[in-house]
């Protein structure tokens, strides 16, 4: 059976929307299950990640669709990398210069600055590690490979600088500059020293300490599946083992290992070519760092009635 993802949920429900004047992409809720291929199956014993648009036995809602412990029907992700829309507010629009040279805290504040009321003026935030991972699992399943650059386009990964938003071919289901151009800061993933901390998986936006120290830089071979109180790293794509040789990697992208108190950057910028991509993470910069190649992306929760 071949899947037509254009008519299959949740992919079929991904669409452009404009909220509070910002160009966003709606990602519908879905459920996930992780485990080994069942006995007697073709992929018996292999590590498998399943996705369903409805809750089924053994599945749980992906944490990107939990807010304060309550399931939300979707989240919105900026169609474009954030730009400075004035009044300290981050925006999402085509043809804008990405907002760079901000710390992670400043990026969080710029996104939250849109929360001036209720409804469309509430729920704005910096994209979280779970919202990144939700896109990653959907891309991985749709294309059957993590190598999105080969399947879709390299994006702006080998040039002399960032281009205006919407100007690259790294576009997945309406999300522009899905990789490359400028790094995107990510909330919900940081270092306590070099120990990995992630947001809890109930949508409370509180950090939990995993006790894990991510590997040094290299090409990821596999990702964490560790679980603990209020976290399940199978929901994410954080490298657990890496190799110095690209051909020994399994995700087609590079991983920059952690520094103390690391921030989480995603996707890559305009410099390092195919080391960047949809599964590229950089833990090599502190939360307080800024750089002209590091920007961020808006996200928004829907209003939960």
């Amino acid at each position: 059976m071949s899947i037509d993802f254009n008519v299959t949920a949740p992919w079929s429900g991904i669409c452009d929307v404009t909220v509070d004047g910002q160009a966003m992409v709606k990602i519908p809720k879905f459920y996930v299950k992780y485990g080994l291929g069942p006995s007697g199956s073709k992929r018996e014993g292999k590590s498998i990640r399943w996705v369903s648009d409805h809750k089924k036995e053994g599945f749980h809602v992906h944490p990107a669709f939990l807010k304060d412990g309550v399931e939300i029907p979707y989240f919105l992700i900026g169609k474009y990398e954030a730009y400075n829309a004035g009044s300290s507010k981050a925006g999402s629009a085509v043809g804008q210069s990405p907002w760079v040279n901000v710390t992670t805290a400043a990026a969080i504040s710029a996104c939250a600055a849109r929360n001036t009321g209720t409804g469309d003026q509430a729920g704005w935030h910096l994209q979280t590690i779970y919202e990144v991972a939700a896109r990653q699992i959907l891309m991985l399943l749709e294309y059957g490979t993590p190598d999105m650059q080969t399947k879709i386009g390299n994006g702006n990964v080998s040039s002399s600088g960032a281009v205006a938003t919407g100007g690259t071919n790294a576009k997945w289901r309406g999300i522009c500059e899905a990789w490359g151009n400028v790094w995107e800061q990510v909330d919900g993933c940081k270092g306590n020293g070099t120990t990995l901390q992630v947001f809890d998986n109930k949508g409370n936006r509180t950090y939990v300490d995993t006790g894990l120290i991510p590997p040094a830089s290299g090409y990821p071979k596999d990702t964490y599946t560790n679980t603990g109180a209020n976290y399940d790293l199978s929901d994410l794509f954080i490298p657990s083992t890496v190799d110095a040789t690209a051909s020994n990697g399994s995700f087609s992208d590079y991983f920059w290992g952690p520094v103390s108190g690391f921030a989480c950057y995603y996707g890559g910028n305009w410099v390092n070519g195919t080391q960047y991509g949809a599964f590229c993470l950089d833990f090599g910069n502190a939360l307080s760092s800024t750089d002209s190649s590091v920007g961020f992306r808006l996200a928004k929760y829907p209003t939960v009635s």
Partner: protein
Amino acid sequence: MADENTTTYVPEKSEWTEGVRMITTADAVVGGVDGPPNKAYAALANRTVYLKDLCVKLAASIPGTEEFEKIYAEIANLDVTKLDGRVDHLERLTGNIMLSLQAANMSPTGYDSMMTETFDNAEEIDQTIATVTSVVSGDDSIDVSSASGIVIGNHYQLTDGEAQEEVQVKSINIAGTTNRVILESPVVNQYAAGKAKLYRSSVAIYNGRAYGGGSIKTDTWEPKKSFSGATTAQDVTTTTNYTSTAGFEVDGATVEAGKIILGAAAFGIAMVSQGSTAGVWQKVDENGDDLA
């Protein structure tokens, strides 16, 4: 006119003899059967008998003659019971085929419905009706108030006015007040107690006319309605006391926002092996088997 000595009669037989021999001058007068003088008489006698037989046959076609009455009596006394039986049997077979077609909603091209009758006798429609006293879906027997008129091997319409199906009688067991009809195959539908009947013909006879069901094919299904006849729509809406979906589960489905979602699919991605720059991955179904 009879002679006293019939042994001297010229032998005669019923045939038309060609020519009557004439005695010539050379003929010697010799008696006997082959004697030339008697050959002429023999020829005339033959012709006379032949003409008489012909007259008798002609007389048989004239009403009032003895021969006519005799033949008429023979015809009237012929036993055609077996012939009737054969005709009836052929009509039953034809009727069964037509009933099967009707039950399958199959009609000749250009017709939107068909009436069927199963003749038992050539001059009347079999209007056998048996009241069913007990019928259970899945059982291959039904009890009727009387088995009178029910014929083994015949097909009947079993209906309570709501559901309907065609059944064929395999055997009939009568013991005391129980009249049990054994069917060739189990009953499929469920029938309202006390309302089911067996009908031999699907044609209703009243007001001197034959009527058949005709509007089934033009009926349309409406949500929350169930029907199996033209005018028997029934509400299937029911009310539950659930105030949330938490305690309401449906096998093979999920309940969301008051809707039952059937057959939600799940797809997976398996990491077949590490390495090769981008790893080896395979899309799989919910059971871990490969998808294209």
